[in-house]
C-alpha cells in the first residue's frame, strides 16, 4: 500500500470560540501507480485533505502513512525530506520563482536535499522532462515569458524532478483556459503511467476527474467514491 489515510479528522477553531469540523473520519487507501481524483464543492475540505496527505498540514486526529512511514511521527525537517523525496506538488497557482529561469525553477527541489544524483544528472533529467512536456526550447526563459499553461507544465516538471512516488495536484487546471487545462490533464495522466507515479488530483473539473483511475467525492467532511462510500 502506497498511502493509507486512517480515521483523519480536521477541526478549525473559530475566533469567538468553538470549532468547525472540515474532515470527519477520512479513510483512504491508495496503491502504487494508482491515479485518483477528489472532487467536491468549494469549502468541502479537498485542499485540506491534500495538504494533510502531503505533510503540509496536520490532522486533528488520525494517521497518514506514506510508504509505511507515519507522517504524524515526523518532525519538521523529516517532513521536509519526505516532501522533497517522495511527494511532488502541483498547485493551482504555479508558484514559479520569477527571478529564476525555467530550468532553475525545475531544479529547485534538487537543492533542497541530496537526491543521490549528480548536478549533471539532475540537469539532464530536467531537460528531458521539459522536452517531454514540450518546453525544451524554453529552459532559459523566465516564467514571465511563458503562458499560463506553459508555467503550469513547468510546475509539473518541478514536481517530478526528484522522482517522487506520489504526485499531489491541487486544482492544477483551476487557473487555465480550456486548451491549457486539457493539455495539463493529458500530461498528468501520461506522467502517471510513464513515471509510475501515484497521482492524486483535487479538482472541480469533472473532465479532469474523469481521466483518473478512481473518482472520489468529498462532501460534508466525508469521502465517498463516485457511487457510494469508500
Amino acid at each position: 500500500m502506497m498511502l493509507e489515510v486512517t480515521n483523519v479528522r480536521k477541526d478549525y477553531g473559530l475566533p469567538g470560540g468553538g470549532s468547525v469540523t472540515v474532515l470527519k473520519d477520512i479513510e483512504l487507501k491508495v496503491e502504487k501507480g494508482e491515479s485518483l481524483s477528489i472532487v467536491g464543492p468549494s469549502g468541502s475540505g479537498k485542499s485540506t485533505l491534500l495538504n494533510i496527505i502531503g505533510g503540509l498540514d496536520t490532522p486533528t486526529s488520525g494517521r497518514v502513512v506514506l510508504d509505511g512511514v507515519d507522517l504524524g511521527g515526523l518532525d519538521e525537517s523529516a517532513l521536509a525530506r519526505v516532501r522533497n523525496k517522495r511527494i511532488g506538488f502541483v498547485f493551482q497557482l504555479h508558484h514559479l520563482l520569477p527571478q529564476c529561469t525555467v530550468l532553475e525553477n525545475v531544479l529547485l527541489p534538487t537543492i533542497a536535499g541530496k537526491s543521490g544524483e549528480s548536478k549533471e544528472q539532475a540537469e539532464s533529467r530536467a531537460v528531458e522532462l521539459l522536452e517531454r512536456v514540450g518546453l525544451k526550447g524554453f529552459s532559459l526563459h523566465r516564467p514571465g515569458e511563458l503562458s499560463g499553461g506553459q508555467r503550469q507544465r513547468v510546475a509539473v516538471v518541478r514536481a517530478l524532478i526528484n522522482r517522487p512516488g506520489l504526485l499531489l495536484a491541487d486544482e492544477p487546471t483551476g487557473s487555465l483556459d480550456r486548451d491549457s487545462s486539457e493539455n495539463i490533464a493529458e500530461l498528468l495522466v501520461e506522467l502517471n503511467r510513464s513515471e509510475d507515479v501515484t497521482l492524486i488530483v483535487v479538482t472541480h473539473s469533472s473532465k479532469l476527474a474523469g481521466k483518473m483511475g478512481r473518482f472520489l467525492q468529498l462532501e460534508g467532511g466525508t469521502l465517498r467514491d463516485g457511487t457510494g462510500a469508500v
Partner: protein
Amino acid sequence: MNIFRLVYRSVLFYWRTNVGVVLAAAVSTAILAGALVVGDSVRYTLVSSAEARLGKVELAVVGQDRFFRAALASDVGTNLGAEAAAVLEIRGLISNSDGSRRANNINVLGVDEQFYKVGGAENPLSVAADEKVVLNSALAEKLGVGAGEEVVLRIARPSAMPREIVLTPKTDMSIAFRLEVGAVADESAFGNFSLQANQISALNAFVGLGWLGDKIGQGGRANLLLAGADGGDKLTVEAANKAIGECWQLADSGLELRRLGASGGLELRSRRVFIEDVPAQAATGAGDGAIGVLTYFVNELRLGDKSTPYSMVSAIGKGAGGIIGADMRNDEIVINKWLADDLEAGAGDTIELRYFVVGPMRKLVEEKRAFRVRQVVAIEGMAADVNLMPEFPGLSQVANCRDWEPGIPIDLDKIRAKDEAYWDKYRGTPKAFVSLEAGQSMWQNRYGGLTAVRYRAESDAEGMANKILSAVNPASVGLFFEPVRSQSVKAGDEGTDFGQLFLGFSFFLIVAAVVLMGLLFVFGVESRTQQMGMLRAVGFSPRVVRCVLLLEGGVLAVVGAVTGTGAGLLYTRAMIYGLGTVWRVAVSGSEIVFHVRGSTLIVGMGAAVVISMIAIWLSVRRRFRWSVNELLAGHSEWQFFGLGAYGVPGQAGKRAEGRGGLLLAVVCFAGAVGLLVVMALSTSKAVAGYFFGAGALLLVGGLGLSQAVLTLVGAGMRRPADSVAGLSMRNATRRRGRSVTVVWLLACGVFLVIAVGANRHNPLAEADRRESGTGGFAFYAESAIPILHDLNSGEGRERLGFDSQKLGDVDFVQMKVHTGDDASCFNLNRAQRPRLLGVEPQHLKKRGAFLFAKTIEGGNIEDGWGLLERKWGEGVIAAVGDSATIIWALGKSVGDSIVYTDKNGRSFEVLLVGMLNNSILQGSLVVAESDFVERFADEGYRVFLIDAAEKERAEVSEELSRGLRDFGLEVTSARERLAAFSAVENTYLSIFQMLGGLGMILGSIGLGLVVLRNVLDRRGELSMLRAVGFERASLKRMVFYEHSGLMVAGLAIGTVAALVAVGPVLASPGAQIPYLSLALTVTAILVSGLGWIWLAATFALKGDLLDGLRDE
C-alpha cells in the same frame, strides 16, 4: 542551480525593492562609519598636535624651580648618543608696545640651536640675536604683532633661595624687557613646543638661552632638559636616568664644594642656601670629619634689658673646632666676646633668642628660645669664620647694615653704631653658637636643615664630590627624566572619544536608517511570501529558507555597507565642518583635521552589516514560524521587529486587549502622580529622578492609553462610520498593532530628543549661592607670576600697592599651583596628571563653597573639604575635583587615585576623595596646602577665588587688574568661567538634539512606508470604495487622517511625557531651555511625517484602483 544562485537571482530580480534596502543600509553605514571617522580625525588631530608640540623630544627633565648646568644636556646627550637640549622655561606675560593687547601666563623659553635640533626644526632666527624674541603664531596672533614690531616681555625672576624661606629678600618678582619680535614661529619652526597634553596651542615666547640666563641670574644654567631621538631610536627612561647618574655633578643640584681660605678646610654649600635633606645626609655621612652647619639670622639676642639686634647664630655639629663640645647640651649657647661684652653676659647667664619662622600664608611668626651661656669665646679660629654665614641674598654682599634686605622687616633704628662696626669688621661672622640639634629644631624648614657641611682640610675635593654623588640618587634632587612623548601620545589616544560621542549623537539617525532598512526588507519579503511557501512545500526546511532570506539580506547589507562607507566620509566632513563652525565650542575652537583609518572603516562597515543583519533577522523571524499553507496563501499580517504582531481576536479578545491597555494606562498615570506627590512631600534632593520616573511612566501610560482607545473604540463601534474621518478612525483601530507601533516609535523618539535637548541649564541662575558652581565667588583669577603675600592682610595689600579702600571687604582664597594637564572639557586629550591646586581647606569649608556630588566611602558629603585634611596613609594625599574633571577628563571616579612624582622624584598617590558638581574649579584637582608644600616647588599663589559684593565688583576687578598687572593677573568673572564650561556641555546637547531631530525626520520616511504598506494591503477594500462612488481625493484624505492622527498622538504623548521628565530643569532658575529649537525640531518631524504620509498615500492610490477588485 544552488542556494547562492537562487540568492543571486533574487537580489537582481527584485532590484527595485533592494535598492531601497541598500540605500537604507548605506545611510546607516555612512552615519556609523562617519561617526567613527570623526573619532579618528579628532584622535589624529590630538596625536598630530602632540607631534608638533614635541618634535623629536622623547624625554624631559622638568626642573621647574631647580636649575642645573646647561652643560648637563650635552653630557647626557653624548652619553646616550642622542640629541639633548638645555632650556630655561620661565613663566611670563607679554604685551604689545602700547600695552593695548596683552597675554598673561605665557611660556618664556630660553633656547639655543640644540633646541631646534631636538625639535627637528629650523631656528626661525638665522642668527642668534639678543634683544629679540620669537613668538609662536598663537601668541603673535593674540598680540596682533609681527616680525619687526616691539613687545614688552615680563618674566618671573627666579630666586636663588626659595621665596617661601623667611630670609629670602623681597626683590622684584619679575623683570621686564622691551624686545623686538625677530620672527613668528609656526608649527614647523617648533613654535608650539609644550609638554602639556593640550590641543590648544601654548603661548610661547622664545629668547636666547644665554641672554635669558644672564637676565635672571641663572647664566649657564637651565631648568628643562629635553632628549630626543630620530625615528625608531627610542630612548628609554631607564637609560636616560642612568646617563644622568653618570654625568651629573654637584653643581646640577646647586651644590658646591669649596676650599675655605683661612682654615684650608673643605665646605659643601648650596646655591639655594639650605642643603636639601637627601644630599645633606649623603654629605654628612661621607666621612672625613663631616660636620653639619646651620646658620640663621636672628632678630635679637637678649639678656635682661640688654639686647643685640640682627645677628647671625650658627648651629654646629658637636666636636667641631672646640666651639661645640661633645658634652654641650641643646639648651646651651656659646657666645663670642663681642656679644658677651654687648650684653654683659657671662657663663651661666640665660640669653633669649628671637627669630622669625614662616607661618601659614607666609606670615612671619617671631619665636623665641632661651639658652644658658656655656662659654664665652674669643673671635678667633672657627669663631672668627665669616664663611659660616651662607650666601643669604640681600645680606652677605652688602657693605653696611642699613643696606640689608633679608626678606624680613628690619627696624633700622635698632641698628647701633657698634653693630655697624661689627659688620664692617667681621661681616656676618656668627656671634653665638648652639648645637646642631637645637638649631635644627628652631630653623629647619622643608628646604633643608643645613647651610653647609664641613670636612677636614686634608679632604680631597674631587673624591668627596664623587662620594656624595654616588650616595645620592639624582632623582631626589629633581633630576629625573619623564617619558613626555609617550605620556602625550597616550593622552591623545585616550582623549575624548569623539567616535563614541558622535555614535551617541547619531543614535537616532542610525536607528531610523536601520528601521527603514528593516521595513523595506520586510516589504520585499512580504511580496514573496508565497515563494517561501513553495520552497517549503518542495522540501526546503525552514532553516534553509531562512538562510536564503538572510543571505539575500546579507548581500544587500554588504552592498549597502560598501556604498555607505564612502558616504560616511562625507558625513565625517559634515560633522568636522560643524565642529569648526557652529559647534566650535565643543572642541574649544581647535581645528579638527580630517583623517581616516582603514581599520575604522572596516569596523564601521562590519558593525553596520551586523546591525543590518540583526534588523533583517528581527524583521523576518516570525515569518519562519508560519505554516506552509499560510505562506502559500500569501499570509501578510504585517509585523515589524515583533511589534504589532496581533492576531485577529474576536470582540471579547479586543475588549480584553483594550482593558489591558487601559489598566496599563491607569497604573502608569497613577504611578506618575504618586511619584510627583512623594517628591513634593520628600526633602530628598533626587528630584530629577522622581520627575524622570514620572515622565517615563506617562510615556508608557500614554502608549497604553492609545492602545486602549484604538481597541475599545474599534470594538465599541456599532454605528456605521458616516464620514471620511469616521472611516479613518475605524481603519486606525483595525490594524492596532501597526497603529500602536507607529505611536510607540514616534513617542519614544520625541521623548528622548526633547528630554535630552531640554536638559541644558544655565549655571548662572543661582551663581551667587555658595553651593553653586561659582562657590559664591565673584571672580576667579590666575596670575602668571606667583604672589607671595596674603591678599587678605593689610600688610599684604600694602606691599602689593593696593588701595585698601578699594579692596575694602574683598576676600581672597589663595591657591598654589603645580603645573599639570588641563583636565577640563576644553582639553580633548585625556589628562594624565592634572594640574594641582593647593588650598587651605578651611577657607572653602567655612564658606560652604561649592556642592559635593559625591564623596569617598566613609566620607561625609556635608564635610567634603574636611576630607582633604584627613590622613589617607603613607604616600597618599587627598584631592577633590570637579565632576567633569574626574569623570570625563580623567575617566576616573571617586576612590580612584593618580600617581604623581614629587620634587624629589618620589612617587605618591593622589586619592580622589570628593567630587564637586559642575564648578569653576574644573580642570584641576584641589589638595590641601600642607600636602602640596611638602611635595612641590612652593613659589607663592597663582590662583585666586575672590569674594566681592555685587556693587563693588567692577571696581574690584579694575583695581586687581591694575595692582597686579605685573604679575599677569587675569581676572575672570566666576559666572563667565562657569558659563564657558557649561557652553561645552550645552553644545554637545545641541548636537544631539540636531542629529536626533534629523534621525526622527529620517524615521518619518518609515511612516510613509507604513502608509504605503497599509494602503497596498487594503487595495481591494479601497477599490471597492472607489467602485461605490468614493472619489480618489476622499480616499487620500481618509488615509491621511488615519495616519496623521497616529503621528500627532505619538508626538503629543512623547512631548508631554518628556516635559514632565525634565520638569526640574524647566522649573530651575538656571533653566536654559531651547524652546524655539525644540519646537522647530518637533515641527520639522511633524511636517516631514505629514509630507511622507501624503506622498505615500498619493503614490499608493494612483493608477486604476479597480484593478484591485479584479485581483480579489
